[in-house]
C-alpha cells in the first residue's frame, strides 16, 4: 500500500536529492573550467545561471554579473526557488513528511545535510571553502542514496524514489548538454577553438562521466564521441539513454502504468535514434529543448496517474 500523497513526496524527495547533488558538482566543475580559460566574454559565470533557465530570475535581483552574486544566487538566495539551499529545504520537507516509509537513518542524514549547509553557506564567497562545501554536499547525497540502496525494501516507495531520481537526471543531463552545445556554437574565435577540448572534458566531468568515457574511447575527446556517449550509451548511468531506460523500468513496477510508460517509451525511442550525422553539435540545443518539454509532460502524467487521480467513490 502506498498513499498517493506519500508517493508524491518521495518522488520529489528523490528529484531534489538528485538536483542538489548535480548542482553541487556542476558548480564545482564549472569553477574549475573558468580557472583554465582565458578571461573572455562567451564563457563566464553567467553561463551557470542560463543552464538553470534562470536568466530572468537573476536580473530581477542583481544588476551585474560577478562570481559572488552568481554563487549567492545559485547556492544561497532564499528568494530564488531554484537555489541549492531552497532545494535542500524542499528535500528535507519532503523527507519529513514521508518519514514513516523511509529508513530512520535517511532522515538523520538529510537533516545533517540541512544543518551543514545552514551553517556553512556564509562561506561561499571563499572559493576554497565553497569547493569543499560542495564536495561534502555531493558526498552526503551519495550517502543518502547508499542508505536507500542498502536499507530499503524494493517497494513502491523505492520505485518512486528511483523514478524521481532518473527523471531529474535526464533533465539535468539534457541541460548540461544543451549548454555545452550553445558554448561550442558561439565560441567562434580562434583563441577559443583551441580550448574546445577543455569544454568537452568539462561536460564529461560535470556528469562525472570522464573516467567511464575514457575507458571506452581512450583520450580522444571528440565532440561526436562525447555526445554519442552521453546521449546513447546504455551502460553509463548518467547518459540520457540509460537514465530514461531505468526510469521506465521503475515506472513499470507501479500499478496502472501503461499510459505513462507509453510516453516514456516514445521519448526513449527518439533519444536512441540520435545520429550525430543528422544532428550536429550545434543543433543539440534544439533537441534538448524538446526533450525538456517532453519531460515536463511526462512529469504531469505521473502526477495525474498516481498522485491526483480521480478518487470518486466506486
Amino acid at each position: 500500500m502506498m498513499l498517493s500523497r506519500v508517493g508524491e513526496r518521495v518522488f520529489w524527495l528523490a528529484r531534489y536529492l538528485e538536483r542538489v547533488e548535480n548542482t553541487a558538482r556542476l558548480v564545482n566543475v564549472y569553477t574549475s573550467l573558468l580557472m583554465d580559460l582565458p578571461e573572455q566574454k562567451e564563457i563566464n559565470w553567467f553561463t551557470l545561471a542560463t543552464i538553470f533557465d534562470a536568466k530572468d530570475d537573476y536580473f530581477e535581483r542583481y544588476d551585474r554579473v560577478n562570481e559572488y552574486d552568481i554563487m549567492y544566487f545559485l547556492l544561497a538566495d532564499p528568494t530564488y526557488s531554484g537555489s541549492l539551499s531552497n532545494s535542500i529545504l524542499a528535500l528535507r520537507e519532503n523527507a519529513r513528511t514521508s518519514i514513516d516509509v523511509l529508513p530512520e537513518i535517511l532522515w538523520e542524514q538529510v537533516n545533517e545535510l540541512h544543518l551543514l549547509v545552514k551553517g556553512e553557506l556564509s562561506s561561499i564567497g571563499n572559493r576554497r571553502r565553497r569547493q569543499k562545501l560542495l564536495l561534502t554536499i555531493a558526498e552526503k547525497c551519495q550517502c543518502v542514496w547508499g542508505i536507500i540502496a542498502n536499507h530499503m525494501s524494493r517497494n513502491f516507495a523505492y520505485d518512486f524514489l528511483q523514478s524521481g531520481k532518473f527523471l531529474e537526471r535526464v533533465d539535468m543531463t539534457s541541460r548540461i548538454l544543451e549548454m555545452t552545445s550553445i558554448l561550442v556554437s558561439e565560441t567562434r574565435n580562434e583563441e577559443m577553438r583551441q580550448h574546445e577540448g577543455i569544454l568537452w572534458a568539462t561536460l564529461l566531468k560535470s556528469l562525472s562521466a570522464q573516467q567511464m568515457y575514457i575507458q571506452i574511447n581512450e583520450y580522444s575527446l571528440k565532440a561526436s564521441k562525447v555526445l554519442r556517449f552521453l546521449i546513447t550509451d546504455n551502460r553509463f548511468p548518467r547518459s540520457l539513454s540509460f537514465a530514461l531506460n531505468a526510469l521506465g523500468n521503475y515506472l513499470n513496477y507501479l500499478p496502472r502504468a501503461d499510459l505513462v510508460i507509453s510516453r516514456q517509451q516514445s521519448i526513449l525511442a527518439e533519444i536512441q535514434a540520435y545520429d550525430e550525422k543528422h544532428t550536429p553539435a550545434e543543433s543539440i540545443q534544439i533537441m534538448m529543448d524538446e526533450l525538456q518539454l517532453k519531460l515536463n509532460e511526462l512529469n504531469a502524467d505521473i502526477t495525474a496517474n498516481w498522485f491526483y487521480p480521480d478518487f470518486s467513490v466506486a
Partner: protein
Amino acid sequence: MNSMWRDYDPGDFFDELMHSKYQPRHFSFKLLDYFKGMQNNAFKQRVKEAELEMLERGITFTVYSDAGNIDRAWPFDVIPRAIQKREWQRTEKGLIQRISALNQFIQDIYNEGNIIKEGIMPADVVYKSKGYRPQCQGMTPPHGVWANICGSDLVRDQDGTLYVLEDNLRVPSGVSYMLENRKTTKRVFPELFRLINISPIDAYPERLADMLASLRPDLANPTIALLTPGVYNSAYYEHAFLAQQAGLTLLEGADLLVGEDDYVYMKTIHGLERVDVIYRRIDDDFIDPEVFRPDSMLGVPGIMRAWRSGKVAIANAPGCGVADDKVIYAFVPDMIRYYLGEEPILENVPTWLCRKQEELEHVLEHLAELVVKPANESGGYGMLVGPHATDEKVEEFRELLKENPENYIAQPTLNLSVSPTSCGDSIAPRHVDLRPFILSGKNNYVTPGGLTRVALVEGSLVVNSSQGGGSKDTWIVDEEAVKENE
C-alpha cells in the same frame, strides 16, 4: 568529586535522587556516584554530544511565534531521574485503576448515566462540560474503552506524596520524546547501563500497535493509521516517529474520505483502500466538519458516521475529552469507589470546587497562595499560580471566579519535587513532573516510567516545553536484580 556538584542543595524540597544535601537515595547511589566521579570537562563534553545527537536526529518541537514557526531542538537534560521499582509497581497499579474508572465513567455518561442518577455527580458538571459531545450518546466503543491512550501527569509534593495532577485523555503527546531520551542516554552514557538495572522502555510502539489492532477484534489484520493535523503541528515529529516505529500509516485528513457505504478509505496509488483503525492526533473539534467545526480543514467529513456505525475504530474515541475537564477531575476518587468499589491507590491533588459556595469563599480568601485552573485548558494556559502572580493578575482572577465559579477549580501550590539538573557550570535542583503513558484496549499497559519534564528556569514550576521546559530520561531502577557482571 566533580566541582559542579559542590554547591548542590535541594533545601526543603523533596529531591528525587537525594535524601538530603549529602545523602543520595539508596537506589540512586550508583547513578550519582558515576556522575560525581566525572571530570567537569568530560561531563560537559557529554552534554554537548547529547545536544548534537538531538539536533542531528532532527528531534524538534515547533514553537509558534509572530516571526513564524520555528523548529527547536528538543531540550534534554542528561542527568536521569530515577524511581525505585517497588514504588513504580504501586504507581502502575494506581494508574490502571484510575484509567479503568475513567473509562467506565465515560461509557456510563454517554449511555445510562447511572453516576448522575445516583447523585454522585451533578448533571450539569457533565453535560455542560466543554468536552462533552452529545453526538456520542448511545455509543459503546470496542471493549467499552474510550480513552485508549492516556498520558497522566504525576507530581510529587514536599513530603514525597505522589499525586495525579491531570489525566490528559484527549491527544496526550510526549511518548516519542520519552523513547528518544532513552536512546540518547544509551548513546552518550553507555557505561551506565552496565552499572544499573534499568527497565527497558522500547516496547511501547509494539504495544501501541497491538492495542490499536485489538480495537477491531473482528479483523485478523486490520489496517491501522495515524491521523496527524500535518507538518505544522507542534507534535508532528512525534506523529511521524510513532507511525514509523509502530508501522502505522501516517495520514493527513486530505488522504481520507468516507464512502457511501460509511467505510473510511485512504487514497493510494492503487485507488481507494479501507482503513479499519485510526489513531487520531486531532482534537474532537476538528475531526469531522460535518459534525463539529464546519471550518475544519484537518478532519474527514463523515468520519463520525463511519465511527458510529462501527466501520472504523477511532482512538481515542470522540467525546472522551469530557473526562479531562478539571471539575470532573475532582470527582475521580468518587468514580473509583463507585465503579470499582476500591479505594484510590493514587491521590488527587486536593481540589476546591469553586461551584460550591463555601469552597469558593475559601479560594477567594487564599487566592494568592493557590493555583487556579479553568475547567478546559491544557498546556498550562489560562491558569493562575498565586504565589508567582502579580497583584493585578490575582485581582483579575478574583473577578473571573466571581463571574463564572462553575468553570474553575483551585488547588494548593505544590512544592514540586526537584531533581539534579545540568545548568551550565553547575548542577542544580530543578522542579520535575512525570508523564507515564497508559494504553487501554483489550488489555492495559503502562510505560515503565514515562517522560520526566523539568522546569529549567530556577524556581520555575512550569515544565511545558512550549514555555521553557526540558526533559529527562526516566529510569525505573530495580535494585533487587543484580547485574551479572558486577
